[in-house]
Every structure is written in structure tokens, then in C-alpha cells.
């Protein structure tokens, strides 16, 4: 019989596990919380029991951050984080609380909060409100909520940018995500500035939804599936009808759409997966192949520490952000040892996780203090919240730093735009 035993075919490579335990060594949660059995036990070991009987599912799996460092560490290609998340989706009897629903619904809450941004921001920073949320719904009082913007990114785009975009010969669609849309439209504006300077028009996806990462983490799987399907329809329209590749500025949104949709939600994305890209990787690949050129201001002098988000490490794309930043002549770059910041999206907001969240991030905070940069660069918004809350340093997406340092006129010239 040909092909027999030539390959194994278990879900998430469960049975390639050689029990070497290196995943558990790299797990940031195991290091600080002895109550979590670690990715090996919670993942491939536990899965054997769950396959026998679902009663062996253990709610301690909810302590997993889904940072995916275990998957990066595994020398055998096992995906412990996916095994754990899939088990939570299949077996958990824990229903999402009001808090979980509020935290997970970044799009719904963001939509309301943006309308009343000054009031919401003021309220959320008031000590009594924080204590109230801590006591009632379990959002830790130490947490600072990211400020909501008074204007959505898309509102700005329609007003300021839309008109000029068709004039370009090349185009992308921008998946802005909830953070750029409701909290930090500046990052989206920075991307438009860079892309336009190198000759690309930036368009919105028609019908973009939240990528769903927070909904997956909080057990709102039905909602996450609906969002995933809508997003894939939007991406397909962009790729196949409009011939525009899709670019995002958040490493987590990209990882979710590329990997979690098919692995965890069962939403097929195989036809468009390679067309979902991260802005720094997209730009660096174009620079590397000589298709575009970028010129930087000579007077931009800064010490920057780059933190690789865990999901960026899982994508294996940290190199693209680093290489782009290195191109800025006056920038002194310090690439930090990859550590988890402990935030992991909504995880760190929860009262029961706050202590562990801060303990996990401590090494990173210490390393940043030792580097003492002018600014920290990272591709993930929740890493940004965590670092800004836990250290005195300001954090920017590499895209924003590139936009700051960009010599727009020179760049346009180099790309034949004037």
C-alpha cells in the first residue's frame, strides 16, 4: 500500500509531540502562575484525555494567553495554543460574562464610545468608576482604558483622503481594525501618508468587521464566525474584483485573519490568505525588491527600542519591521529580547489575570528601562497599552515612526510621482 505511514495527519500536529517540554519552558503563564498546567499538559497531553471523554476538559485552559510562544518554541511543529483554543471552543461550559462581552465587542463598544469620546474617556479614567467596574464586572481597577478618539478613522478618510486615492496607479485595501477606527486614527493616517508617498492609493474594505480575536478569546464563537465570514467576503471582493491586496497595521489582526479563521473557526481563507499582509512586511518586501524607494529626513534623531509582539513572532515577521526602522539614518535601534508583555488583548483587563499579566510583563518592562529609549516601537496595540501603563515610555507602531521620519517630497520623487 503506497503512502501508508508516510506522514501523520493529526489535528494541529498533536501526535508529532515528542514531550520535550520546551513549549512549557517558553510559556509566560507557567512561569508566573503554578495553577496553569502549561502548554504541553493543557495541549497535546490533555487532548488525548479529551479525545477519550470530553469530561476531562479542564477550565484551567482559560488561563492560556494564546500568545503562541509555545508554537514558536516547538521544534516538531505541534500547535499547542491551537489545541488549547480549539478545546476551549469545543468543550468549555463557561459562558461569557457581561464583562467578557463588553471587552470582546471592541467594534460595538468602540462605535458608541467614539460618539461620546470626551465623556467616556473622562469617565473611564475616574478612580470611582474604575473601582466600580472592578467590584461589579471584574475589570481590574489598575487598568487604563485606551482613550477613544472623537472621530473615527473612516470619517477622516472619507473627508480628507478618499478623493485623491484613485489617482494612483497602484492600490491596496487597508484593514484598519477597531483600534485605528475608534482609538487611534493617527496610525491609519500615517499609513496613508507613507503609501501615497510611494505611489499606492489606500482604500477601505467594503464592510470591514472586527477581526474577532477578542471574541474568540472570550468565547463568543458564533459572533466571531460571523465577523470572519463577512471579513473574508470583503477581502475576496478586494482581491478578486478590485485587484487590491489587503494590508493591516496590527500584527494580531493579521494573525487572526490568516491563521485563526481556518484553524479555530473553520472559516476557509485558503484562497486569499496570502493576500492578507502586514504594512511593514508589505513595504519592506517592496523596498527589498526595488519596486519602491523610501527617503528619510536627516534630522530625525531618535533612540528606539523595538519590542516584537508574540503574534508577530508567531508570524515570523519581526524582521520586516526591524529592517524598515534600520533604514532611518538618524535612528538608533535596540531590538529587545522577545518577551511577552502579559497583556494579550483583553486578558490583562480581567481582574483575575491582572497580577499575572504584570508579572509576565516585568522582564520586558525591565529591559525597556535598561534600554531607556526615546520611544518604544511595536506592531501591536495591546502591547502598547501595557507598556505605556507599566513604564514611563511612549509607544508607537513602526508605521508611525516611519511616517514621522519620512521625507515625503524626496520619496515621491524617487518613486516617480512628480
Amino acid at each position: 500500500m503506497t503512502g501508508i505511514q508516510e506522514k501523520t495527519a493529526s489535528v494541529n500536529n498533536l501526535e508529532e509531540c515528542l514531550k520535550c517540554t520546551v513549549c512549557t519552558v517558553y510559556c509566560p503563564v507557567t512561569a508566573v502562575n503554578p495553577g496553569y498546567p502549561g502548554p504541553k499538559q493543557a495541549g497535546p497531553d490533555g487532548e488525548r484525555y479529551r479525545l477519550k471523554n470530553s469530561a476531562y476538559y479542564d477550565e484551567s485552559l482559560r488561563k492560556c494567553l494564546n500568545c503562541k510562544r509555545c508554537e514558536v518554541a516547538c521544534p516538531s511543529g505541534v500547535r499547542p495554543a491551537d489545541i488549547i483554543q480549539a478545546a476551549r471552543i469545543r468543550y468549555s461550559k463557561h459562558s461569557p460574562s457581561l464583562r467578557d462581552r463588553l471587552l470582546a465587542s471592541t467594534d460595538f463598544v468602540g462605535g458608541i464610545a467614539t460618539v461620546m469620546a470626551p465623556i467616556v474617556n473622562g469617565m473611564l479614567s475616574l478612580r470611582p468608576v474604575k473601582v466600580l467596574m472592578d467590584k461589579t464586572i471584574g475589570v481590574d481597577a489598575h487598568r487604563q482604558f485606551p482613550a477613544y478618539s472623537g472621530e473615527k478613522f473612516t470619517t477622516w478618510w472619507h473627508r480628507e483622503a478618499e478623493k485623491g486615492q484613485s489617482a494612483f496607479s497602484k492600490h491596496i485595501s487597508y484593514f484598519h481594525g477597531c483600534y485605528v477606527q475608534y482609538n487611534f486614527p493617527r496610525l491609519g493616517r500615517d499609513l496613508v501618508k507613507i503609501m501615497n508617498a510611494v505611489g499606492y492609493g489606500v482604500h477601505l474594505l467594503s464592510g470591514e468587521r472586527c477581526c474577532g480575536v477578542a471574541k474568540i478569546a472570550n468565547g463568543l464563537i458564533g459572533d466571531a464566525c460571523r465577523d470572519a465570514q463577512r471579513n473574508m467576503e470583503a477581502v475576496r471582493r478586494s482581491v478578486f474584483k478590485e485587484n487590491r491586496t489587503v494590508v493591516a497595521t496590527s500584527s494580531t489582526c493579521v494573525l487572526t485573519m490568516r491563521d485563526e479563521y481556518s484553524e479555530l473557526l473553520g472559516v476557509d481563507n485558503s484562497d486569499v490568505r496570502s493576500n492578507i499582509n502586514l504594512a511593514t512586511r508589505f513595504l519592506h518586501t517592496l523596498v527589498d525588491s526595488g519596486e519602491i524607494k523610501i527617503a528619510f529626513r536627516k534630522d530625525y534623531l531618535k533612540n528606539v527600542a523595538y519590542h516584537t509582539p508574540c503574534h508577530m513572532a508567531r508570524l515570523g515577521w519581526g524582521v520586516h519591521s526591524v529592517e524598515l526602522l534600520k533604514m532611518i539614518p538618524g535612528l538608533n535601534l535596540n531590538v529587545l529580547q522577545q518577551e511577552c508583555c502579559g497583556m494579550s488583548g483583553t486578558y490583562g483587563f480581567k481582574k483575575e489575570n491582572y497580577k499575572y499579566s504584570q508579572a509576565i510583563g516585568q522582564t520586558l518592562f525591565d529591559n525597556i528601562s535598561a534600554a531607556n529609549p526615546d520611544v518604544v516601537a511595536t506592531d501591536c496595540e495591546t502591547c502598547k497599552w501595557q507598556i505605556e501603563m507599566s513604564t514611563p515610555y511612549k509607544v508607537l507602531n513602526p508605521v508611525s515612526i516611519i511616517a514621522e521620519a519620512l521625507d515625503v517630497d524626496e520619496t515621491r520623487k524617487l518613486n516617480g510621482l512628480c
Partner: protein
Amino acid sequence: MDYFAEKKYYDVIIIGGGITGAGTARDCAMRGLKTLLVERFDFTAGATGRNHGLLHSGARYAVTDKESASECITENMILRRIARHCVEDTGGLFVTLQDDDLGYQAKFVESCRASGINAEVIDPAEARRLEPAVNPGIIGAVRVPDGAVDPFRLTISNVVDAVRNGADVLTFHEVQSLIIVGGKVVGVRMLDKRGKREVEAYSSLVINAAGIWGYLVAKKAGITINMFPAKGALLIFGHRINNMVINRCRKPADADILVPGDTISLIGTTSSRVPYEDIDNMRVTRDEVDVLLREGSLIAPVLANTRIIRAYAGVRPLVAADNDPSGRSISRGIVCLDHASRDGLDGFITITGGKLMTYRLMAEKAVDMACAKLGRNAVCRTAETMLPGSDDMPGYNVKKDCCGGLLPDQQSAVRAATGRHGSLSRHIVCDKESDRAVVCECEQVSVGEIRYAMDQLHADRLVSLRRRTRLGMGTCQGELCACRAAGVMAALGKDPVSTLADLKSFIAERWKGMEAVAWGDTLAEAQLMEWLYVGMCGLDRVPGLSYSKKQ
């Protein structure tokens, strides 16, 4: 105190610590006989620990061996009740593949019904829904009350009950000869393998329940039992791929049963006659692996791409009827021999043939004969009395009663221990955090469970610990847990020097089972194991049993 300081007298001495011997000891003890159970190695070290773990409905024998079929279904129903902590009610399917004769199905169903087995013809689509691992191309399916039974747990539970009822048990005591006075067996002379000395025990009656080794025991008394040592090989897959037993609906042949057993799945078996010289050292051959894999992947195609963690083989104690070269057509029926009437040797009974499924009935028949010979008038109660572990299950609170309440985050270890020991798990003491440490991660065995097995389940070496707890039976085959468990045993009072030799022989035994299937991930696992134990720990320099290094 030396057990043999004074002469020991029993009503019955039973030779053989497999399921038949353990069941016979329980039955004897429950009927008030003063009983000694003797085993040359460890409980379940022979064929009892090397089979499918299939709770037969009897359907497999319905067409060819009606008597065995009826015995199986009766005992099946009894075991579901008295040994529920050893049994998993998976249900079973008999499937007809495209190239098989669908005509056999009607005969099969009719024969099942004649034997009292509830066989229900179902739509192949329904079978695929019930068991997604089954070959999607099946053209027929019958549902039967098959299940899975753990032979290790079943045996030790019988031993525990025998001891509770007053029986003595001796492991690592090998019978050297029967003591015969005036044409009557009056006792046994044994080699105490640990004390390295000869000891004797006396009895009115000796029951030979040594399986295929019973041939050799009888031979010591000059008696020949015409037995047929039939080797059966099986493969263990790394995790469960099916949750129902899948059988092939045809005349019994090679590799036509796939059983979900605890955390793994098992395909088997083959059947071939082996010489008596080989019965202590079964090795699975390349041809056997090939046939198991090729035939097995016909009933469940996913087997072709699933990691095999181990191959093993047992020897069936068939009693020869004719010269059938494979032994497939020999009855699995029970043979109970009174050597007084058969061979003129009084005080000696052999109970053999049969199968794991019918061990209780075998014991009943042997003890009925023993009671008749001893002039005792006691009724068998083994079919009604729950085995330890299966008793007082209703209202049994896992969280509260088991392991002294493990931490909530270690619930999976609690559940695993309860799954293994049933209500006996309340004896596992895990008061201290160190007791709750997990030793075997694949099978979730804690320090507390190891201590319980050492103190109460006659486990004093790693291989016994494996049989009592599943330690080292998981994906890594002892790679991570063997050295930890050896350390725990030494910390609990075992001599460190002999523990080291024990570790070496345990690892050698694990490698023996991996050797026949050493490719892909299992080869990588074996290599990692070698680096750890030989490269890092220098286990090859430990004196003791020499082991064959994998190729």
C-alpha cells in the same frame, strides 16, 4: 517477620497471577477457603496484560463457536455491573467492506440472536455518523454491545478483593515443583526470586491457572495437556481515533478488530503457532506489523496516517483440538481438568482455555470443582458482588472524596485517577503539594497515586507501577516519567541500587515495544529517549540487565 518462618497450610494454592488466577483466588476466598495465590513475576505479566482489552459481546464467535458466544454475552453483562470502573460502554460495530461478502451479515445476525446477543442491522450512513473513523466505503453495518475492558484494573481489583476476603498473595515466587505425597499433590515448592531461596507451602488442593505456562506447570507433575500456544500481535496508536469498537463482519481473521482502550486505540490481532521455548519472549515481526497496518487501515483509513507508539504480542492458552496451523478454528471454550480422574493425580486441577471475557466463569467452574473435592458446600457469589473500585459508586463525589481533594487546577489528574481506580481512588492520599505533583504527564499519574499503588496494589517496581497506573504507557513511553518515578520509589523507601537496575530494565522493555514500529515520530521519540537516558544519564553504565539498543 519471615512469612515462611512457620509451615503454611492452605485449602487451595492457585498458580498464576493473570486474570484467571486472580478471579479464582477471589472466588475461593469469597467461599471461605483458605487461599494462596502464587505468581512467578507480577500480576498481569502474561497474556492478561497482552490482549485487546475488548469487552466481547460474543458476536465475534457467534457464527463459529456458539458456546463461547453465549458465555461472552452473559459475562459481558455481569462485568458491566460488577466491574464498571474497568469497563467502558463504547458499543461496537461489525462492518462489511466493499470487497467483503454482504451475505455473511445475515448469517452473522441470525447467529448472534441465537446466542442471545442483541445485534441490530443499521444503515452504513448511521454507522459513519456513530463512528466517523470507520471506512466511509462500508456497505453494511451491525451494532452490537461490545465495549472496552481494562485487564490490568480488572485483575488487580480481583486480587484486592481476594485479599480482603482473607487470601494470601505472593508475587515473584516461581513454582519449581509440586510436592506430591502418595499420588496426591499436597503443596508447591517455590523459588523466592527476590530472597533467592526455596520456600514451600502446603494445601489440600492446587489449581493450575497459569495460562499457556500451565502446560509447563502440569509437566512438572508429569502430566501433558495438549495446548496450542497461539501468538497474537497488536499495535497501539498514540491517541484515540475511534470511540466505538470496530470489527470486520467476516469469519475471524487477522487485524479485524479496532478497540478504543483508555487514551489509545488498538488494532489486532494476528494468530500464529509459536514453540514453547519462545513464549517468554514474544517479539512482533515486520510481517505482523505490515499485516496489522494494511488490514487495519481498511476498517479505519486514518490508521494509515496515525502514529503507532508500540507493538506487542501475547500468547493465547488454547487447548488443541486438531492440527489447525493458526489456531483460529480452535474453540475459545473453557477447559477445566480434574487430574484425579484424568491422570490419576489427586489434589490437582487445571483451569485453562477460555478468555479474558470469561475469566469469572472459568473461576466459578474451577472453584465448583475444588469445593466438590474438598467437600465444601459454598455457593459462588462473584457474579453478584461488586468488585472493589466499582462498589459504592452512587453518590461518590469525585472532587470531595478522591485524592483528598486535589487543587481545582489539577482536576484532570483527579479525573484520570478516578477513571483508573474507581471508588478505590479515595485511598489515594494527596494531602501535601508534593503528593499532587504529576509524575507521568501523558497519563496524569501523581506522586500520591504511585504511593497508593506501592502500598496497596503490590507494585514494587516500575513495570508493576505501569500496570497499576498506566505510568509510562502514554505517547512518550516513559521518556519523561520513568526516571521521575524511579526517584519517587527510592524516596518512598526502595533501595536506590536495585531501583536503578529496575529503571534500566523498564526502559529496555519500553524500547522493545517501540523497535518494531521505529519510524517517524516514534523513532524520533526513541532517539530523544536514548539521548536522555544513555547520553545524559549514562544508564548504559548501570550494571544489570543488558538491553538491546534500537537499530
